[in-house]
């Protein structure tokens, strides 16, 4: 990734309310504060979460209409997908509900945002399971580099269903979760810039983790000792503190979008969630790591703008 992504706004709907208080379920914000009630009525749960997180990020960035939108989601509106599927299976294909079918399309979240915001630029949805958000970031960097856009809204969202909960142990180690998180990104540093994404790396070849981390640090020209904090489900760099965000809020394929917003919040506020009871200082470089049972892993480096 050659072009850095300046982060001017973040928004998340997750179990970690205000990036600080851990709730037992995904915190449902007061949606009507940001989304007109008439429009809210027609939105499913994941659409509400996704739209709310996105608008929060845009408001912080003081952007009304993003020039482009990239969403990462493994399953899209899974509740609607299952609703449509079970209706057709239960009724021998006699009855079917068009609105569930419409929502089942993977790009419903990005499309819904376009309509809500009047965003007429690029509108991409990346669905490569646990790399969906990373792919969305890499394309954002390349499209900003190409000069097609100067700002882009990038996020990740996935929801859980009963079936997914019951079978998730076959794919993931942590309890399954859900959520939505968005970042408003620009090519040039804006006055309200909070942090910067310096690089993203994806490994589909099940490399040795320390080799993967070392190669990434080398590419980023950063010494591992200059990493202040790691967001990871394992102790990635010896003697570096890490926050296991996946165990904290429950795991889902596009969760690195949430981890990225958490990293930005920590850098901006220079504090970690209170319940961790950590004294931290000088958090300038945060490394977001993710891995899955199938061996795929990814890294995102988010830094203070002064770094």
């Amino acid at each position, binding site marked *: 990734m050659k072009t850095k992504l300046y982060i001017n706004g973040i928004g998340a709907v997750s179990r970690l309310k205000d990036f600080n208080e851990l709730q037992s379920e995904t915190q449902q914000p007061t949606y009507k504060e940001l989304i007109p009630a008439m429009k809210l009525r027609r939105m499913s749960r994941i659409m509400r979460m996704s739209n709310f997180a996105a608008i929060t990020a845009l408001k912080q960035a003081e952007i009304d209409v993003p020039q482009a939108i990239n969403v990462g989601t493994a399953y899209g509106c899974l509740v609607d997908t299952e609703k449509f*599927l079970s209706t057709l299976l239960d009724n021998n294909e006699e009855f*079917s509900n*068009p609105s569930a079918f419409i929502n089942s399309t993977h790009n419903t979240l990005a*499309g819904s945002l376009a309509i809500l915001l*009047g965003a007429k*630029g690029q*509108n991409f949805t990346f669905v490569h399971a646990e790399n969906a958000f990373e792919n969305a970031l890499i394309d954002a960097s390349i499209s900003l580099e190409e000069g097609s856009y100067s700002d882009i809204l990038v996020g990740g969202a996935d929801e859980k269903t009963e079936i997914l909960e019951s079978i998730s142990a076959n794919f993931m180690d942590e309890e399954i979760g859900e959520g939505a998180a968005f970042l408003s990104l620009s090519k040039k540093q804006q006055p309200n810039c909070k942090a910067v994404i310096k690089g993203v790396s994806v490994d589909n070849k099940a490399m040795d983790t320390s080799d993967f981390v070392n190669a990434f640090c080398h590419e980023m020209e950063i010494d591992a000792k200059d990493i202040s904090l790691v967001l990871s489900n394992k102790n990635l760099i010896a003697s570096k503190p890490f926050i296991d965000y996946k165990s904290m809020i429950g795991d889902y394929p596009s969760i690195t979008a949430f981890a990225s917003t958490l990293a930005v919040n920590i850098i901006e506020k220079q504090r970690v969630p209170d319940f961790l009871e950590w004294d931290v200082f000088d958090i300038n470089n945060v490394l977001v790591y993710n891995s899955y049972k199938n061996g795929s892993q990814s890294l995102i480096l988010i830094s203070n703008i002064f770094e």
Partner: protein
Amino acid sequence: MSKIVITGIGAISAIGNSTEDFLSSLMENRHGIKPISILRTALAGKYLAGEVKLSNEALQHMSGISGMQSRTSLLAAVAVKEAISIAQLDYALLAQTGIISSTTVGGMDNTEEFYYDFKENKNIDFAKLHPSGQHTNQLANYFGIDAYVSTVSTACSSASNAMIIGARLIKSKQVDRVIVGGADALSKFTLNGFKSLMILSDTHCKPFDNNRKGLNLGEAAAYVVLESEEAAIKRGVKILANLEAYSNVNEAYHQTASSPNGDGAFEAMTKSLAMANLKVSEVDYINAHGTGTDNNDSSESMAINRLFKGEDIKFSSTKAFTGHTLAAAGGVEAVISILCLNHGFIPANLNFENPIDGAELTPITELQLDVKPLNYILSNSFGFGGNNTTLLFSKYKI
């Protein structure tokens, strides 16, 4: 900046199991829209579709890929195999090649069969095939495509968007070449979905006809190998065409419907021409999205009329040949456009009788051979969520 060229094409659909078959079907006006006989569905007697008339076992044999697969993966493997062979990619080159695939249903064919088993934690290996990225992982693993792996899903513009993302990856020098396209097997899910929207025709679709009654669904996989011109010249492979320009825009109008004025289609075509610095009069042919639905065809006609302002423009939809192959459609039509550039022909818009009232546009209704000039082709793909993509392919000149 190095140009983006195409060095390989591969496809399978109702009009053939290879790009060579595609060519002869288009040349002989042989469509593939027939009664449903492969997919097990209660709707089999009621609708026609563009099925690949091969069992999963036959597809497995054809692609050489073994193990548990979704039909989407099997179709994709057949098409990718052909594209790799035409582009002459060996193991060493494949290791430095990326893949960006796309699908709307992924492993839905298995999920339809085993959904209630999943509830009892049985047949979970089939659940693992469900996610859309899974077929791309299987292609990457099977063919040893290592440099970049990604999957896109933007409904019926998916494969076209995969091409945009791939072209940008090459431009930014992350990779020299990338295999891009899409695959979708016919499924009960999509068949019933389009039925519920009441845009499924009970007979042969009639794109751009005044009495059109909706679309026919199809299944397909189609891929192209995009490469930097520099890399292609260096290894001496035959260059088939340029991907000259591209554009993706959103209408921000309605979740499924296109705007009556065709704003999205107009913007997508306009921006592609601007990117290539091309005049409207230089476009030789449009391979239209033309699904045969009331809404798409009138909206797309409006966009064409607005852009060409009464100038004579040759256009046709090839969906009456293949059916609407959803995520794969942009791939199928890219392959068809590249065949047109290389063989100097324009395929017929089958089943057309009368122009749409108010639009008064007549597509190419008879196959045209020896078309000159045929240098620039626009390929339109529009999807749910207001997603509009236009690709501009051009004849490669040394």
